[in-house]
């Protein structure tokens, strides 16, 4: 009965001109979205590669220079473009692509794609994630809203019932018929994406495993929508009512709930403003060691400690340049301040994120979006991870420069210059994003919620078939 109904429904769906047109439009949109994204990301990636190479060359060819001048001159850490950002660009567009690394200061990522766009960017981009998250659920509604109501309206249900249908088997036939085209579209999209990604040169490390995980997440999302749409169709008395109810669910789940969740999270756990943040950092900096100020109370204390440690009575007798040493200590103090304040931001983000995730029980869109961005490495967590790695590299760079300064010059020798080949000894910024397993483990709650959505909605659908 399941197979028979599957074939019958599939034939009906395919012969319905409305469905054919919708299906074609969605496939076309997907194709265009993948093509646009692939070109866009390839361009961006090329730009990244060029900029990264050029920046390193500038760094390596500074010539003879004082290490601390080089520290102020700074360099850039470039955020890698992850292959799956082609499917879901997440917050990438808004968070910046590179971080300027300099002495005494932790900078935020800059040069975001959104900053380079005009006001027209408010209309959004045609990206695969837009099609996957918004359009395919709409397609499911269009294909399935009248799945059961039409049987009542046409009168075929009476004949079916007189033939002795087993309701759950018959309903499962309809379920598979609705799932099949969705599965075909999604498989097609991910297959094309996989082929495109595996053929792009220098596009980061691409793993089919990550792509497959992303595919499963979206399939789970669509199963939930199929269950909900068919449940509504079972309960509604007329097709028109079923359509309105299904669209209402779509609006609530995909449009209203994410925005409401965002507002609630931001209201409950607000971020400090940029001015507040900068002012708090400055305040803490003023209360500690300033590497550039040898006369401050903190500098004098450090001086006394170092003299006692080395058992000498003058900083001139130390086996290193105390100016550079103080500079390094100042860096370490400032790094701690930044760590503290950024950690506060991360905590706030984490609280917002947890609240957001707890609201995922009201909308399957939320856990899906979280998982999609996480697996694509385009969520805030991935950005924080990169930002922290860049900060670690900044701290290591400052230590590398200050150590050279301290070990190769004496106190007061501000005219010291490192050799021209010294800069090449600084290791490259080598950032590895979190592995898939780590990401899935971090986002386990979203996985559980998505799983619960699938199980409960399917259970509800199956139970409701008893009323046929």
């Amino acid at each position, binding site marked *: *009965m399941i197979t*028979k*109904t599957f074939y*019958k429904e599939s*034939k*009906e769906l395919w*012969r*319905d001109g409305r469905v054919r047109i919708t299906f074609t439009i969605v496939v076309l949109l997907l194709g265009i979205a993948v093509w646009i994204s692939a070109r866009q990301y390839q361009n961006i990636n090329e730009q990244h590669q060029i900029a990264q190479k050029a920046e390193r060359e500038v760094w390596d060819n500074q010539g003879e220079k004082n290490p601390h001048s080089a520290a102020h001159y700074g360099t850039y850490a470039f955020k890698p473009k992850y292959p799956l950002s082609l499917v879901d660009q997440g917050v990438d567009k808004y968070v910046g692509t590179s971080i300027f690394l300099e002495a005494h200061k932790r900078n935020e990522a800059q040069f975001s794609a959104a900053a380079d766009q005009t006001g027209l960017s408010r209309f959004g981009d045609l990206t695969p994630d837009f099609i996957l998250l918004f359009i395919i659920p709409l397609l499911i509604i269009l294909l399935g809203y009248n799945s059961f109501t039409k049987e009542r309206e*046409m*009168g*075929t249900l*009476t*004949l*079916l*019932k*007189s*033939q*002795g*249908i*087993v309701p759950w088997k*018959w309903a499962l036939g309809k379920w598979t018929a609705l799932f099949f085209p969705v599965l075909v579209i999604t498989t097609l999209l991910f297959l094309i994406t996989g082929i495109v990604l595996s053929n792009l040169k220098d596009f980061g490390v691409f793993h089919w495993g990550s792509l497959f995980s992303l595919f499963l997440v979206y399939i789970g999302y669509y199963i939930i929508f199929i269950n909900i749409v068919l449940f509504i169709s079972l309960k509604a008395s007329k097709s028109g009512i079923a359509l309105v109810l299904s669209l209402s669910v779509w609006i609530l789940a995909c449009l209203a709930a994410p925005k409401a969740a965002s507002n609630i999270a931001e209201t409950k756990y607000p971020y400090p403003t940029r001015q507040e943040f900068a002012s708090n950092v400055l305040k803490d900096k003023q209360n500690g060691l300033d590497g550039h100020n040898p006369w401050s109370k903190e500098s004098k204390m450090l001086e006394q400690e170092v003299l006692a440690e080395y058992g000498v009575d003058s900083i001139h007798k130390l086996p290193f340049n105390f100016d550079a040493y103080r500079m390094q200590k100042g860096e370490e103090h400032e790094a701690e301040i930044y760590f503290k304040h950024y950690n506060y931001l991360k905590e706030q983000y984490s609280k917002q994120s947890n609240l957001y995730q707890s609201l995922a029980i009201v909308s399957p869109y939320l856990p899906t979006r979280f998982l999609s961005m996480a697996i694509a490495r385009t969520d805030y967590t991935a950005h924080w991870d990169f930002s922290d790695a860049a900060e670690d590299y900044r701290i290591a760079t400052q230590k590398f420069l200050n150590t050279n300064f301290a070990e190769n010059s004496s106190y007061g020798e501000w005219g010291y210059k490192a050799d021209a080949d010294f800069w090449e000894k600084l290791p490259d910024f080598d950032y590895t994003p979190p592995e898939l397993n780590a990401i899935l483990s971090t986002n386990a709650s979203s996985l559980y919620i998505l799983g619960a959505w699938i199980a409960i909605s399917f259970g509800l659908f199956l139970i409701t078939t008893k009323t046929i």
Partner: protein
Amino acid sequence: MITTDKLTKKFGDFTAVDNLDLSVKEGEILCLLGANGAGKSTTINMLLGFIKPTSGTAKINGLDVIKNNLKTKESITYIPENLMLYPSLTALENLDYFAGIAGKELSPQMLTDFLKEAGLQEEAFQKRISTFSKGMRQKVGIALALAKDTKVLLLDEPTSGLDPKASNEFGALLQKLKKKGVAILMATHDLFRAKEVATHIGIMKDGKLRQQFVAENISLSELETAYLDTMNYKEALS
């Protein structure tokens, strides 16, 4: 065969079917006549298990229709007044699906043969049902009965709205099924068609079977008189 024993259905205070005793044996056609609301369709709905009786029993081939709902439906074909099929599927596809639902896996040749036997023109086999007249759809229903090798055929006003030719053809198909040993219960307003096809005729009023005849023992005019008397139409007319 079809049997009911003191079959009763009440909707609140209203008694739709009242202590109905019926029996339709293999190769018999019982036509139930009666005005709207007489209880004919409710009886059929109870035989299909769509409605639970308030009291009494309805049996198909000796099996209680409520206790053995799926089992009894294996031998039933039901053709309502307006047999609705899937408009975007062809006659063959509809027959294949409904027979399949009933557990009959039939080859395309067999499906074609059943449609032929039901009197559908060959050029219509591959046409979508949306292009079919009511009479053509009823023939697909008969083909389904043939495909299912049905033992019990329940018909609810099947000739209503059919033109005389189609109605005549439908009557001939019922005779064919009768010869195959199918027990047929038909609810109708059409006295002429009832007299023509039935082996037995019953007249229902207010949920009760008021009169029952062996069809060959009564003429059409006698049937008409009995019907009008039962309905009290003569008094109303005079």
